[in-house]
């Protein structure tokens, strides 16, 4: 069985619209997503069978996250103190480059060649696999879904189910081609193939990398939830464990994780709990026989402090990365995760990515939503995602001379022409004289409306004003009535 080679992932091309258009035409992809999202929605609903309990728990989850964010600097310092006391080394990074440098310097200090990774979305932000591969370090994903996408030089299409865009037959071909195993579509057999390859890698690895679901300030504990055991393997077998996480993942007390874990696993997978809840509070002690000799935590900002600076946008950082918003999103379900072209797809991606990469790089994200509200309704920590999308739409068209600098890349969709049209529209609708004149002109000149009006008519027929306005008809109706009396 050959080792999977570590060629950097294929860069996504074109812009969001082109990728979305392409995805919509891919019936296999649409089937894969539709059936997976339907199943995830059903499971979540079943696990929250008591609506009363669910709503109170969501309110508590929101309050816990809001409390943690309201004292974030203090909690981060307490977390660092307690982790340091427990023997964990804490590092801070403002950018992904700084975070990669920190990780690489730890790897170099140990002359490590092989890194095994538990699932970590922050490491995806860092493009850690790519960066380490360029330094000649093998960096292998061990979550089954992540392993599959890495083997196919892809990126995850879902934050919880990275390979959800593939069906078993596609995985079977991939394993056959890349691992040289006999073709099988049997999921149990495919998982056993993955287990065998990765067991050897856990055994050999010099460094284990993981993410963090919750960092508890009170006790200095890193909590990871997972079903497979690869997270436990990655954080326990190699002599060095490096955890990477965003600065927003801290919670104040150990008891705070009780409702949050419940909300997370039920919202994500409809499970009352994951197979493993792994609470790491320190490296191996002198008298212990296993566990890593060193544990490091890298705390990454990468735009989070920008979201934090605005009290409305700060709510973005409530996120506990359950993926329920994407599972329930009619847009995500139709175009899949790759169309977004960024690490975090779906509704949460649309509100967090602009802070990480700048709004100018993802100008279409805030408007790729029907604002149906499903994401906000299912969010376990009550992030008002639709409201934040509307807010980002405003930031997107903010005038360049606006004194309010809220986010990097704001105003990239600002157009003087559009602004002029909207101002004129506002005038028109607030001045009775102008409105009447416009109504008169629109109804009399309706035949002159062109049949093609920009992108609207790609999927709709052109709007055609009625022969007579409602005002006009109402006036006539009322005058008739008074005439009758």
């Amino acid at each position, binding site marked *: 069985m050959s080792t999977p080679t570590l060629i950097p992932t294929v860069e996504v091309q074109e812009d969001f619209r082109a990728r979305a258009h392409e995805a919509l035409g891919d019936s296999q992809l649409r089937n894969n997503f539709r059936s*997976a999202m339907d*199943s*995830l929605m059903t499971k979540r609903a079943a696990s929250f069978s008591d609506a009363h309990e669910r709503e*109170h*728990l969501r309110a*508590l989850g929101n309050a816990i996250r809001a*409390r943690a964010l*309201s*004292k*974030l*600097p203090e909690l*981060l310092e307490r977390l660092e103190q307690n982790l340091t006391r427990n023997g964990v080394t804490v590092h*801070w990074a*403002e950018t992904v480059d700084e975070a990669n440098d920190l990780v690489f310097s730890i790897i170099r200090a140990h002359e490590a060649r092989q890194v095994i990774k538990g699932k970590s979305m922050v490491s995806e932000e860092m493009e850690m696999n790519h960066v380490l591969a360029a330094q000649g370090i093998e960096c292998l994903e061990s*979550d089954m*879904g992540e392993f599959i996408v890495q083997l196919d030089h892809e990126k995850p299409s879902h934050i919880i*189910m*990275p390979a959800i865009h593939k069906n078993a037959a596609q*995985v079977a071909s991939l394993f056959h081609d890349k691992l040289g195993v006999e073709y099988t579509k049997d*999921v149990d057999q*495919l*998982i*056993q193939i*993955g*287990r065998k390859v*990765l*067991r050897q890698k856990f*055994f050999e690895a010099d460094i284990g990398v993981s993410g963090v679901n919750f960092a508890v300030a*009170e*006790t200095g504990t890193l909590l990871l939830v997972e*079903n*497979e*055991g*690869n997270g*436990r*393997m990655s954080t*326990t*077998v190699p002599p060095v464990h490096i955890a990477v996480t965003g600065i927003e993942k801290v919670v*104040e007390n*150990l*008891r*705070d994780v*009780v409702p949050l874990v*419940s909300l997370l696993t039920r919202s994500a997978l409809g499970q*009352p*709990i994951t*197979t*493993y*809840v792994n*609470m*790491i509070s320190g490296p*191996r002690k002198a008298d212990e*026989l*296993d*566990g890593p000799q060193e544990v490091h935590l890298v*705390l990454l*900002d990468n735009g989070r*402090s920008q979201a*934090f600076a605005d009290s409305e946008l*700060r709510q973005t950082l409530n996120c506990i990365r359950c993926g329920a918003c994407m599972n329930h999103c009619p847009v995500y379900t139709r175009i899949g995760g790759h169309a977004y072209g960024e690490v975090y797809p779906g509704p949460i991606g649309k509100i967090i990515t602009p802070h990480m990469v700048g709004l100018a790089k993802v100008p279409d994200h805030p408007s790729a939503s029907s604002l149906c509200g499903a994401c906000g309704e299912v969010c376990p920590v009550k992030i008002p995602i639709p409201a934040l999308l509307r807010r980002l739409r405003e930031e997107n068209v903010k005038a360049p001379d606006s004194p309010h600098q809220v986010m990097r890349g704001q105003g990239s969709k600002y157009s003087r022409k559009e602004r002029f049209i909207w101002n004129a529209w506002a005038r028109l609708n607030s001045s009775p004289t102008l409105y009447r004149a416009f109504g008169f002109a629109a109804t009399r000149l309706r035949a002159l409306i062109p049949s093609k009006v920009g992108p609207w008519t790609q999927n709709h027929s052109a709007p055609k004003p009625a022969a007579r306005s409602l005002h006009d008809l109402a006036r006539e109706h009322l005058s008739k009535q008074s005439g009758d009396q």
Partner: protein
Amino acid sequence: MSAKQSILAKLRKSLEGTTPVADNFDEALVTEPWTYAPEQRIAQLRKQMEAVHTEIHLSTEQAWPELLAQLVRDRQLPSLLIAPGTPHGQRVVEHWAGHPELPALKAYDRPVEEWKAELFNETPASLTTTLGAIAATGSLIVWPTREEPRLMSLVPPVHFALLKASEIHDNFYQVQQRQNWAAGMPTNALLVSGPSKTADIEQVLAYGAHGPKDLVVLILEDQ
């Protein structure tokens, strides 16, 4: 300015003039829906754990070593990893001494570096104790120790776990409070709620992803 100072300065500036959100943690929300009568706890735990393919056997303080021996034989396991330095490990040693036909016992008595290959390749099963369990979610509480290190419940494909019925708690919150977890956590603490599993391929559930393929729980009812 270091990255730490810079990040904290930005966060502090953003919070200027604000007051921290009050701690209004309502413990009833995480306890009341998850409270069981004493006689229901085993049934609730069982329901949750069996739903995710855990094998559960009821036994007693007196009889469990014999049941364990039977289960090991039934599975035709060539050896069993135990902790001879613990009281329950000693019980296994004593029972095995009277039955020379039983498969070999192994001890995790040296640092993993000294026997990593054997642990990974030639250790098919292990026995560990638990610190109790959580009925609400069907979770075993495992705090690895020097005698029963972290990998003991993870690397062998079959994991036998001993659980005293009297140590089955209602919910996670209650466990944290009763065992006073906030006062000091071990280097590693775990909730284990079944054998390792994944649904990463087409949402099809498969067991034995990276951790144990089989989790077998022996509940000791007279304790």
